[in-house]
């Protein structure tokens, strides 16, 4: 394959545009999927994404190709310039980012291979065999994925950045074969699978399957509910993805303020007296992400003109108060704000040292969720979301889990949940269920909601 250095040099040399940024990402990925205690699909892929962002006057064109041959690289450069000439003035125009060259820019990309699953394969095969033994009767379902992405970003300004992003996830779902409604789920994030505590994950699954021996039917209604970190992550992610500055200023977002005239946003509004802080920070140990912006498509939260701009910690909520909205540089200038760009992780802090089990122990009567699923926006004005509970809703009485409850459809706004949260536990690394394909680096705290809106019963089990 063409080396990244040769590819980026060829592209920048070929560019006749006023400005040019090249984003190259080499991805090496292995994955393994299983269901009914047998493997279903797998794969090992080697892919490259190569994008040229050409700026001609106030216009920009973004064209991506394979980057497998130098002639194609030059053709992509020409196509992006043509696109820039034809697309008309861009709304997010800003000078291309300047900066230094990373010392490791010329180094090759990193890769993974199927052997990364060697230990997991043995442990999983043994669990498949053991799960089928008489008395246990479990069926296992799940997915393990390891991806290593190396990104090179090179600009006509002289900027040269390189970043290696490993991402590993595992999800395991266990069901009782003669009653598939007894179902439990665990998931974990790992950079390289060496730190994966597979036996601990299986032990947690089996603890939850024991809880499900007693089945309890409950009607729809508002329940005191403990949201574990995974469910909190899914809700907080949706909220942060809605915290773009432009729509708020234009009055078409849940973060606009009614009645205060054009441009008023909810920045500075205190949602809760609890010291909750929700942040993204590329330097968080174990959840590191690129310390510079990389995007090949402009949106309300990021602009292709901003590629390479440093990404710092952002507190979206700080001590219970709405503290930041996302602004590309052009939007920041338009609305008198600071450039604010989310890193690819999300962390909720400000709670006690209590783990989820301790919140359960302090509950007279309530529900403990496992995770949320099929989360969709119902009303953007309030950021009302709907979705379902999945793989274990547990009834808590007198501080103990006493059985598994039917599933529910919920209707809730994460903004409103922050207002109503009555207890926050300890922050821990967690894998969200709904959005993990796009966003797997989160650390969240369990939350107690005194009146979570279970809108209707779902027969799904």
């Amino acid at each position, binding site marked *: 394959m063409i080396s990244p250095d040769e590819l980026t040099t060829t592209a920048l040399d070929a560019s006749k545009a006023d400005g040019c940024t090249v984003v190259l990402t080499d991805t090496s990925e292995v994955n393994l999927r299983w*269901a009914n205690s047998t493997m279903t699909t797998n794969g090992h892929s080697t892919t490259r994404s190569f994008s040229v962002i050409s700026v001609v006057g106030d216009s920009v064109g973004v064209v991506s190709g394979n980057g497998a041959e130098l002639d194609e690289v030059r053709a992509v450069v020409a196509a992006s310039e043509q696109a820039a000439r034809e*697309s008309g003035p861009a709304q997010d125009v800003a000078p291309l980012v300047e900066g230094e060259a990373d010392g490791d820019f010329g180094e090759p990309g990193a890769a993974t291979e199927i052997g990364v699953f060697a230990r997991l394969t043995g442990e999983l095969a043994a669990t498949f065999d053991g799960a089928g033994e008489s008395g246990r009767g479990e069926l296992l379902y799940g997915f393990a994925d390891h991806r290593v992405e190396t990104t090179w970003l090179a600009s006509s300004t002289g900027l040269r950045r390189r970043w290696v992003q490993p991402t590993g996830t595992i999800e395991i779902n266990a069901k009782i074969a003669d009653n598939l409604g007894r179902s439990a789920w665990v998931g974990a994030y790992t950079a390289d699978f060496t730190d994966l505590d597979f036996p601990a994950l299986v032990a947690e699954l089996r603890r939850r399957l024991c809880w499900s021996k007693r089945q309890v039917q409950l009607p729809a209604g508002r329940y005191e509910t403990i949201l574990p970190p995974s469910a909190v992550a899914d809700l907080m992610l949706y909220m942060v993805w809605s915290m773009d500055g432009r729509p708020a200023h234009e009055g078409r977002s849940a973060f606009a303020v009614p009645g205060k005239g054009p441009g008023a946003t909810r920045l500075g509004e205190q949602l809760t007296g609890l010291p909750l802080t929700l942040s993204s920070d590329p330097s968080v140990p174990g959840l590191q992400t690129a310390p510079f912006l990389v995007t090949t498509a402009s949106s309300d939260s990021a602009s292709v003109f901003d590629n390479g701009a440093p990404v710092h910690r952002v507190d979206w909520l700080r001590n219970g108060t709405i503290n930041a909205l996302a602004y590309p540089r052009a939007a920041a200038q338009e609305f008198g704000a600071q450039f604010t760009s989310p890193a690819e992780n999300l962390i909720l802090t400000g709670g006690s040292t209590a783990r989820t089990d301790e919140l359960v122990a302090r509950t007279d009567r309530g529900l403990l969720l496992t995770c949320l699923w099929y989360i969709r926006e119902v009303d953007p004005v309030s950021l009302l979301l709907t979705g379902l509970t999945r793989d274990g809703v547990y009834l808590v009485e007198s501080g103990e889990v006493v059985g598994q409850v039917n599933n529910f459809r919920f209707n809730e706004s994460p903004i409103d949940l922050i207002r109503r949260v009555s207890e926050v536990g300890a922050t821990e690394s967690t894998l969200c269920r709904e959005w993990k394909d796009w966003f797997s680096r989160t650390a969240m705290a369990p939350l107690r909601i005194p009146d979570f809106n279970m809108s209707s019963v779902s027969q799904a089990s």
Partner: protein
Amino acid sequence: MLDIPGKNAATRSPYIAGALKRFADSARYYCPECVMIWPPNDPAVPLTFRGDAGSSYGTPVTDCNRYFCTAVSEEHTFQSSLFRTLPPLQLGSAGVSTGTIDTDFLALPLRSLADAALERARELGAEHADVRIERITGQLLRLRDGAVATMQDSTTIGLAVRVIVEGTWGFASHLELTPTSAVTTAQRAVEVARTLRPLNAERVELAGEPVHAGVVWAGGHEIDPFSVPLSEKVALLSEWSHRLLATDGIDHTDVIFRAGRETKFYADSDGTSTTQQRVRMHPSVTAIAVDQAAGLFETMRTCAPPTARGWEYLAGNTVWDWDSELAQLPEWLAEKVKAPSVAPGRYDLVIDPTNLWLTIHESIGHATEYDRAIGYEAAYAGSSFATPDKLGTLHYGSPIMHVTGDRTYPHGLATIGYDDDGVATSQWDLVRDGTLVGYQTDRVFARRLGLERSAGCAYADSPHHVPIQRMANVSLQPDSTSDTSTAELISGVQRGIYIVGDRSWSIDMQRYNFQFTGQRFYRIENGALAGQLRDVAYQSTTTDFWGAMEAVGGPSTWVLGGAINCGKAQPGQVAAVSHGCPSALFRDINVLNAREEAGE
């Protein structure tokens, strides 16, 4: 009016051109020009068409050995909301190919790369091997308030090798199209299979399929969207935006245009080789009204569905009536802004095809995927209440419910000649007379289900993803005995809501409990529309909902809707799929008020 592939729009007649013919082996009818079958699986309906009725047609259209003979028909006009030309209701067989393959793709060393990979896989002990060489081209264009906010073109090329070794799948892919890459990718696929062999408890076996050697299929479009200059696209979409922005009450516009083109070569160790190409596009226009004082904003989006057509879908106003829809958006939005909030409770619903397609997608399309029904997606997308033990007995809905699966409708997003298992595509029943009678399958699942052949639902969205069983076009058939109009359905409702356009959707992992909203909700009082409502969400359980379907509209209400963003599998794959349906009447459905649900 029926769209006739390959014919210039200007020459289209408001009637189906040509005579209907009848299949020799059934009572179904067939239009040799537009390859429509009518009715889907029913004995003949007294539905006829202007043309040279009565002539015989004795030539097989494909290699499937189906011959056509004489039928007659009466005159009938198809009308359908904003479709200037109604998508054909059915298509006969996979072999109908009306387009062409890009010559630069054909110039690639497809056969030699495939042979190198297949040979290496065979040498290493693979019992089965297949190779895909694909080029996937995409375009995203977004205009905010008439100016370009996002512009992105992308092309992905790659080579994929899938093997079965000792009854175990192995898959590998690489971006390079070189003989060395083909050989090493085959080796890697075998290595994956052997490494993970200890995890496989079920020997992989494929249903049989005739060899299709050297076949070519290309979907029908008139203008390749990627041949149209960007400036022309921007000019049209910008003009649409400014048309709306010039209207009182519209503060912002958001126009999104997506186009895709798939070109794929497939070859397997049985001798099948296919070369195929299709395009798709989805333009959508949203008008936004903001009331800063009240802290409210409201939107109205076009209902034009995504479709496997070319640029002719947007240009010229000949396929979809853009002028009419854009002209009405401001008025619809203004009425919605002022509309009263719905009182929650139980209502009769008349659901327009522009909304019902999504309910079909979620509650029937996914529920009748065989891989879901046997648990393959249980840890992710979910399973299905419609399990194989209920095949032939499950009362899915009322007796008028007839749902088909197909990968053959002209301009259907799932339509293609051969799937990614090398299987010729077809059309079949999923729900007949309200009963579950079929599943969507690939070759592995067809064999497990005891079928002789696969339904042809294998699909991978990229050369870097493994084929899985994906959704066919799943469609609700119209009333085959009467061309009941939407107005006639509404006339039978005392207190209800007429719902148009899709918006929010959510359904549980077994496809029981769902909740949908829409673009427009009209109160029905005493059989007539009585102005818009807002904040409507309808919530039900799949079999209750379809069991409450009292009537379906006729062919004139039938519209082919769909989505280009259906997600499934891990790693995640995205597929495009169409769903045709008529308007339909549902009795006594639970309606929520979204604002009240938010605690407001």
